[in-house]
């Protein structure tokens, strides 16, 4: 690139244009020659994210219900998780390394911890928001506790829980990039390789893919959420005000 130094005025612009066309060519070349590497990283990234969100649901939803039913549990559990949440995700990843080694296990553990709070908090709020009169009549009609949970409480809590899952998913997809640091693979590999080799094409491919995944997860879960609250918006197409829903309830 030495010759650009001597091209005088307009050289920087020319240089940038040349670099841009180079970049696109490089990205195209990458997909032509290394598509198998890309596909593997992409699939790995999705796998890590799906597992972590699933773990977050499996832990966060039952704990959230417990918090909604028991005030002492709520104070303790939300306290623990809000404290954990202050720790940066990269730090959590490194803290997990001495315990779980390197590779996939520490990444799954660390990212799951990151994903639990939004699911847990939203589950607690969703269950606490169910009007007591609805539960009372359900009980008085002769529903068993299991029926009340599956037929009344869960359907009513589902939209807000899903909002929490959405927050968790977007966070996990973004943070899973860091998992490459501890050898878990995923799209982070591309980004860190790009950083190491000063290859903007790899940085762009990795970054854009993570962004696309986040947007896709958000869109998908938003659609599911809308389907779940159809009964609230059924009023002749005029949506009801529902400040408690539609946004994620984080730690306040």
């Amino acid at each position: 690139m030495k010759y650009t130094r001597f091209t005088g005025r307009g050289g920087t612009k020319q240089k940038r244009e040349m670099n841009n066309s180079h970049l696109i060519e490089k990205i195209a070349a990458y997909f032509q020659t290394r598509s198998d590497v890309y596909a593997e990283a992409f699939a790995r990234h999705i796998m890590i994210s799906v597992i972590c969100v699933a773990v977050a649901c499996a832990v966060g939803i039952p704990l959230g219900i417990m918090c909604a039913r028991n005030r002492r549990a709520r104070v303790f559990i939300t306290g623990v998780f809000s404290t954990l949440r202050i720790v940066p995700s990269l730090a959590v990843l490194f803290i997990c390394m001495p315990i779980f080694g390197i590779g996939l296990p520490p990444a799954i553990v660390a990212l799951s911890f990151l994903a639990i709070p939004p699911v847990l908090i939203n589950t607690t709020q969703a269950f606490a928001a169910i009007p007591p009169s609805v539960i009372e009549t359900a009980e008085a009609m002769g529903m068993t506790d299991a029926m009340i949970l599956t037929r009344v409480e869960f359907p009513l809590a589902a939209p807000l829980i899903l909002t929490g899952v959405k927050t968790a998913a977007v966070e996990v997809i973004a943070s899973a990039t860091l998992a490459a640091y501890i050898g878990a693979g995923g799209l982070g590999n591309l980004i860190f390789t790009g950083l190491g080799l000063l290859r903007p094409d790899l940085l762009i491919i990795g970054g854009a893919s993570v962004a696309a995944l986040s947007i896709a997860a958000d869109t998908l879960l938003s659609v599911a959420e809308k389907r779940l609250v159809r009964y609230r918006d059924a009023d002749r197409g005029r949506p009801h005000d529902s400040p408690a829903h539609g946004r994620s309830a984080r730690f306040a």
Partner: protein
Amino acid sequence: MTELLRFENVVKRFPGADYNAVDHVGLSVEDGEFVAILGTSGSGKTTLLKMVNRLYEPNEGRILLRGEDIADKDPVQLRRGIGYVIQQVGLFPHMTVRGNIATVPKILKWDAGRIDARVDELLRLVNLDPDEYRDRFPSQLSGGQQQRVGLARALAVDPVLMLLDEPFGAIDAINRAALQDELLAIHRASKKTYLFVTHDIAEAFKLGTRVLIMHDGRVMQYDAPDVIKSAPAGEFVEELLGTAE
């Protein structure tokens, strides 16, 4: 007339309270009666009602339904045979009118045809056009319409006993009068037994075949409306009647 429900020396004291919410109540309800339970807030009228379907358990005494102690029965099974309507209605917001009314029939595994026929029959009974309202969600109904659905839902499996806790308390005067008339007509046609809690003297005397006046957890008087008016038992009842003049 045969006896349907009997309270024997029933006491309810809530944890941490230093008084009895329901204080040694003994009384008998005949089959087919409409008992209006009248009292101020804190008189124990709602507590008394909620012990009948075991939402509350008495600390002392027994409640007998057709001669059997309800404490010996499975509360879930007991409740399926007792209708329950409350002021807040408590409709399930995520279910349509049909879904709400069909709750207990579905639990009892009625077939779909029988459920559909019953839903339409009940909607007509509470003066809602089935074709118009069957597939609506509770958020698409007015307060009065919601309570009509609440009533239909409680009546779904033709319970022997209906418990109503100030069901018209949050409804405007005009709709309330209409609902009272409809409820009376439904009661007369069904020949079932109704316990109706209210703090509205006019409502109690209009609806009740007998009125049960409660104060501080105790029964002040339990008689036909005419008898109470002509021979009030004691100062409290006299005062209460005085406020309604």
